[in-house]
């Protein structure tokens, strides 16, 4: 187990370097950041040159990348164009997005798995058909449509919730955005769980458990569900990274100042430091989430052993 962990951690290094280099190059290809920084009116050449020097943009790209990575390892992610250190932006953005992601994941787990179990056990019944139809609708409608619609109905027409989230982004205000963010994944989790449960219902160990005379609840939760969760856990694990980085649409609709907002603004203003910094952290989140998923396999299925 320990050796496996070390191997996995070592594998992360090339992935991390490769991913950040790719992002760095892509952002650089987009063009001269100083032109974007100056806005509608071009900066005079002297100021532009001075800004380039200050942000190190006059050096060759490989050198920029090397200095950047060296700084990153000392915890310095550079300065955004508005004069704020990128770490400061991260400190405000990540807690908000983590909260939002947690709300979304809780929705996925609670609603998604519950629906999946119910439909998996009652395959072909009306409740199964109804839920399947529902998930189909949710998957096929884009997030911004669901988001705007729910915002208009619940926020403006019925006045149940605030249509936008305040800067502090407390948990209760994140329930609606979290649900919207989770909606598509939730539908997938339902379908995954349903298929998995339906398949494993006929497995030998379930028959054995029933034959042993275990109560139905224990059979379903302990034996059937636990073994059926592996694909679902894989999905949710990778979804954590996707939800954190992919909340741009949801964060815009509900005015949440999280990672998506910072990324969006960073791209619009061609702010290399912000974009690369945030994406670097997201890459780390992906890697760690994936590792955790792999380790969870062993917990869920005793037959899986790592060496």
């Amino acid at each position, binding site marked *: 187990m320990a050796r496996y962990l070390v191997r996995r951690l070592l594998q992360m290094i090339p992935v991390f370097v490769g991913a950040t280099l790719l992002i760095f190059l892509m952002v650089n290809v987009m063009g001269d950041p100083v032109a974007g920084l*100056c806005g509608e009116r071009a900066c005079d050449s002297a100021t532009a040159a001075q800004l380039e020097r200050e942000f190190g943009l006059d050096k060759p790209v490989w050198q920029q990348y090397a200095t950047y990575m060296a700084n990153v390892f000392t915890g310095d992610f550079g300065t955004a164009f508005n004069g704020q250190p990128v770490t400061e932006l991260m400190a405000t953005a990540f807690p908000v997005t983590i909260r939002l992601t947690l709300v979304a994941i809780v929705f996925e787990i609670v609603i998604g798995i519950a629906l999946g179990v119910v439909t998996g056990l009652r395959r072909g019944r009306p409740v199964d058909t109804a839920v399947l139809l529902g998930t189909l609708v949710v998957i096929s409608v884009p997030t911004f449509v669901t988001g705007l619609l729910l915002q208009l109905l619940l926020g403006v027409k019925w006045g149940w919730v605030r249509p936008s989230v305040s800067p502090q982004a407390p948990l209760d205000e994140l329930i609606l955005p979290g649900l919207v963010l989770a909606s598509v994944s939730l539908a997938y989790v339902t379908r995954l769980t349903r298929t998995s449960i339906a398949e494993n219902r006929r497995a030998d160990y379930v028959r054995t458990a029933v034959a042993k005379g275990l109560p139905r609840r224990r059979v379903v939760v302990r034996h059937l569900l636990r073994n059926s969760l592996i694909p679902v856990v894989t999905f949710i694990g990778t979804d954590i990274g996707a939800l954190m980085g992919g909340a741009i649409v949801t964060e815009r609709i509900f005015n949440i100042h999280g990672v998506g907002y910072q990324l969006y603004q960073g791209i619009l203003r061609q702010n290399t430091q912000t974009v690369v910094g945030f994406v670097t952290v997201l890459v780390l989140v992906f890697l760690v989430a994936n590792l955790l998923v792999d380790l969870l396999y062993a917990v869920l299925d005793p037959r899986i052993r790592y060496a």
Partner: protein
Amino acid sequence: MRGRTRVQWALAVAVAVLPLAACTSGAGAAGGSVLSSSWGDPQNPLEPSNTNEVQGGKVLDMIFRGLKRYNPRTGRAENMLAERIDTTDSRTYHVTVKDGWTFSNGEPVTARSFVDAWNYGASLRNNQKNAYFFGYIEGYDKVHPDSGKQTADTLSGLKVTGPRTFTVTLGQKFSTFPDTLGYAAFAPLPRAFFTHHKAWLDKPIGNGPYTVESYTKGAQMYLKKWAGYPGPDKARNDGVTLMVYTDSNTAYTDVLAGNLDLADDIPAGQLKNVSSDLDGRYINTPAGILQTLAFPFYDKAWNTEGARKVRTGLSMAINRAQITKTLFRNTRTPATDWTSPVLGEDGGYQAGLCGAACEYRPAEAKKLVQEGGGLPGGQVRITYNADTGSHKEWVDAVCNSINNALGDDRACVGNPVGTFADFRNQISQHKMPGPFRAGWQMDYPLIQNFLQPLYYTDASSNDGKWSNKQFDALVDRANAETGQKAAIGLFQQAEKVVRDNMAAIPLWYQNGSAGYSERLRNVALNPFSVPVYNEIEVG
């Protein structure tokens, strides 16, 4: 055993989540007569000489007062901190600052407050984006050379002559110079700005009717009424909370839900229902913004006598009235000159100066384009940035109009560029394949500002590199003129040169728009399309 582990797990997760959930506190509209207003994250640090966009400008307009202030109704430059600005030769100006003004930290506003601020703004070392505003002052080439190191720290043209008096010497005659002093870049700065710069940026100190009470970067700023404000335009409310919105649609939704008091910039998609949604609490007033199509004069094909006819022909092929009415729902007005109605007749605005060239005349348009040798390359590609505003919509509409007029489906196509930054980039590298979107938001309400920075040879925003000796000579003469009226007359003559050459196609004058909640009264936008916050009454 297993069961217990699971409980422990759940506990651990709960403990990890709790601190995240704990930091919740009240937000939104504060009580009393404080109003909340939509805002965007300022692009640059909030230094007056470093702010060249409207969101940072909003704050500066609330916390600073300069020598002059533009009347929010008429746009006329009026004395604010200036007691007198005298000159005999349009080159050396003697400025006297009014007595009794202080910054909100108690420090008196003196001549030095201005001179230090301007020197800071001009100095190359400080990377100030509005540095070129000080370019008229003598010695600018020393503190801000085009290349190489600066050889002086202060402008030789600025001299403090007394506690409340200083002189400004310009590098050339510039008769309307005093009227430019209402621009935020010319604001005075307290000593704290220089001695505790970082702290100042976190919580700017100024001399305007509001003081910054709290500022959470990227989220919100609470500006409180400054009770000790010595000026005549005291705040009529207790304060303003500026809330950052990433999407103007969300801000609009929040106004509908009563969560936000004031949203400026109503999204285009909501314009058709805004009157009924807000029951008349909607304003739509002219702002000093002109949208044009600029041309790449560095491209030989566009810089010929024939191309002049083609440009005029293209202008006639655009049905401005229809586009502004159906697409913009009258938040734009068809342009008939190269300035803006907010200048007023006295300020140099001349309705109809463009004449027939700005009217929709498809038959003549087709004829002119043919006479001019056809479209360069057989097709015009209008370049625009697709990330903000509704540029795609109007460029498509303009192309449609051109295609219909010329009877050719492929005469005009849009050429979208992904981000504004990249768009600017391609413009500065002279890579425009044809006409491109150009918008001009005035810095100060003077006809000079609509002409010189855009069409003078090698001027700061002359992106198409248009150059015309006659125009340059007229602008030089206008700037040297001592009389306001005569200067404006000469600028208008220069504008006629722009017209005769169709240096840029004027499209429409842009309005500022805003919607507000039932709590507010007396809401107005100034010519810079910024709400006049200090006049808003709450309750």
